[in-house]
């Protein structure tokens, strides 16, 4: 249904996890019923998009392809151009660290002149190469905030008209910083009983969920194996979440239960505890689910996962450990199981409620921009 006849096109890159796709889906879900919604996905997860009721096409990511950056961008421009001419969007939302040359070329060449939005997660580590793409190229910048962040707006004076490539001092780019962007609202997360039933888990069993990422960039199998042994030694069954975009599944020890569900947060309350990397969406979901969690920051990426994870302890029962050595892993698991025991005896501190409605605010801004484009 598209009563206002507004078309939105989402472009999500393929990162180390599903974070970029997750944010685009978060915006799109809030826009359902208000706009036509289509995805151009570099993440190998199209069935996830379609299962949520959106149309999608797929193009192989630059991380996966063997092509040079130039050849890949040339092909991207053509493929995305075809999509633009079909969907005829009023607004395009790009979620990624670096808007690609192929993406920008296609946007410039397309005759429809849609509004451009850049969803740009922050908390980038110092020393990481900054993207040469100017924010002033976009009509709206959305900064998905970290847990505890509040909404604020700024205006960037002087905009580049991307279709004329002219810098116009009087025009502005609106920049909004929103609270965390989550794919589900709190009331959409399954209760413990419902989640266990959906996953086929015993209502009385003791389970820890492990979601250390796809393993495409960081090898998680060795860390995972040791953690699994420690957890099973502690009397817990381990459930291992398999990411859709993994190119190779980590071999699992006997007795480990693999699951492949999305969104994972919907099922998190099934578990007594959780172990995961400290990516943006995982951290948001840990706070939403409220279960005792051990976060293992991935230091190979551009975002500062260590800082993000450390900041969470004010909002949820969270521990942080790099788990790089056997002794660190043993200590981390001991601490996690102590936290689990505290939760089970209702002995956890109370945490202040925190705004998690970033997706709603961002979707509202996107819709206002799209309406203004018509």
């Amino acid at each position, binding site marked *: 249904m598209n009563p206002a006849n507004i078309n939105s096109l989402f472009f999500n890159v393929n990162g180390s996890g599903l974070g970029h796709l997750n944010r685009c889906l978060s915006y799109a879900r809030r826009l359902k019923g208000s706009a036509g919604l*289509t995805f151009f996905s570099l993440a*190998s*997860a*199209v*069935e*996830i998009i*379609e*299962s949520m009721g959106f*149309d*999608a*096409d*797929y193009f*192989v990511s630059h*991380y*996966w*392809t*063997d*092509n040079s950056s130039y*050849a890949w*961008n*040339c*092909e991207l*421009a*053509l493929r*995305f*151009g*075809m*999509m633009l*001419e*079909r*969907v*005829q969007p009023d607004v395009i939302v790009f979620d990624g660290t670096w808007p690609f*040359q*192929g993406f920008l*070329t*296609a946007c410039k*060449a*397309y*005759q429809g*002149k849609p509004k451009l939005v850049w969803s740009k997660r922050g908390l980038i580590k110092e020393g990481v190469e900054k993207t040469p793409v100017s924010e002033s190229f976009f009509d709206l910048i959305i900064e998905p905030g970290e847990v505890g962040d509040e909404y604020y707006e700024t205006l960037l004076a002087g905009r580049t008209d991307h*279709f*004329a*490539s002219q810098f116009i001092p009087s025009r502005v780019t609106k920049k909004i910083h929103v609270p965390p962007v989550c794919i589900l609202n709190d009331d959409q997360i399954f209760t413990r009983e419902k989640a266990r039933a*959906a*996953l*086929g888990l015993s209502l009385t069993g003791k389970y820890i969920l492990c979601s250390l990422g796809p393993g*495409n960039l960081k090898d998680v199998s060795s860390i995972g194996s040791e953690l699994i042994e420690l957890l099973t030694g502690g009397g817990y069954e381990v459930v291992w979440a*398999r990411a*859709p*975009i*993994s*190119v*190779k*599944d980590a071999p699992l020890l006997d007795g480990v*239960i*693999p*699951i*492949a*569900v*999305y969104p994972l947060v919907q099922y998190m309350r099934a578990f007594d505890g959780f172990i995961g990397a400290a990516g943006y969406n995982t951290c948001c979901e840990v706070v939403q689910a409220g279960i005792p969690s051990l976060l293992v920051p991935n230091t190979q990426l551009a975002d500062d996962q260590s800082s993000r994870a450390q900041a969470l302890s004010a909002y949820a029962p969270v521990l942080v450990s790099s788990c790089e050595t056997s002794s660190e892993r043993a200590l981390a698991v001991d601490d996690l199981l102590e936290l689990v025991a505290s939760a089970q005896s209702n002995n956890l501190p109370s945490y202040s409620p925190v705004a998690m409605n970033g997706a709603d605010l961002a979707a509202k801004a996107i819709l206002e921009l799209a309406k203004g484009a018509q």
Partner: protein
Amino acid sequence: MISRQAFIEMQKSFVATGKAPVGGLLSRYEILPRYATLDLGRDIPLRTHLYRIGRKLLNLLGITKSVNKNAEWRASLKHAPVLSDAKTILIWGMREGVINLDIAIPANSGNEPHLDSRTKSKLDISRQACLSLKARFASSDDVNGAFNPSKLIPVLITDQADFAFYSRLGWLVEYLPSLPGSGESYFDRKLAYLAWRYQNMPVIDLSAELVFNRDLEVFSVDALL
């Protein structure tokens, strides 16, 4: 729904005529070298047109090399190593063609609760067919029992969204969705584009009976090379 044979006819047409896909796609979305970026207005700027004419002249005279229009597109993936002279092969994995495959369906592993059993059964047929074909390709590489990087770069052309499986398959996937909108069907347009992009590549069915020549090059029974 288009057949594999019809797709092959499209490929042959592009080879025979040398034409690009219709609609001016290649011209509109061409990436220019940075030093030649001369955007002046909303449409393709006049200077850009003049630059392109000049560049074409220089290409014809052999002074410069053509870019983009004939830019090589490699279908190989970083996580699926192939030999430098590996050949691209297209695999026709459209839903209609897969339904009639005579393949035993493995038991439901039960760890995809979001899929109903009917959907899972259909996907299992495709998955098994892909894995059988992959094993067949691998056996062609298994010279003297040692693993070799593949001689083949498979590209799956499909309208079935099963990307969690495809991620692990190690094949490039060219997906053909039907998108709502006006004008020419997106499915048809993209299909024609793929026929042009991969115009010289053989296309086999998922169920193709494969034979190998003495050099361990693979062909399907109804060979297309």
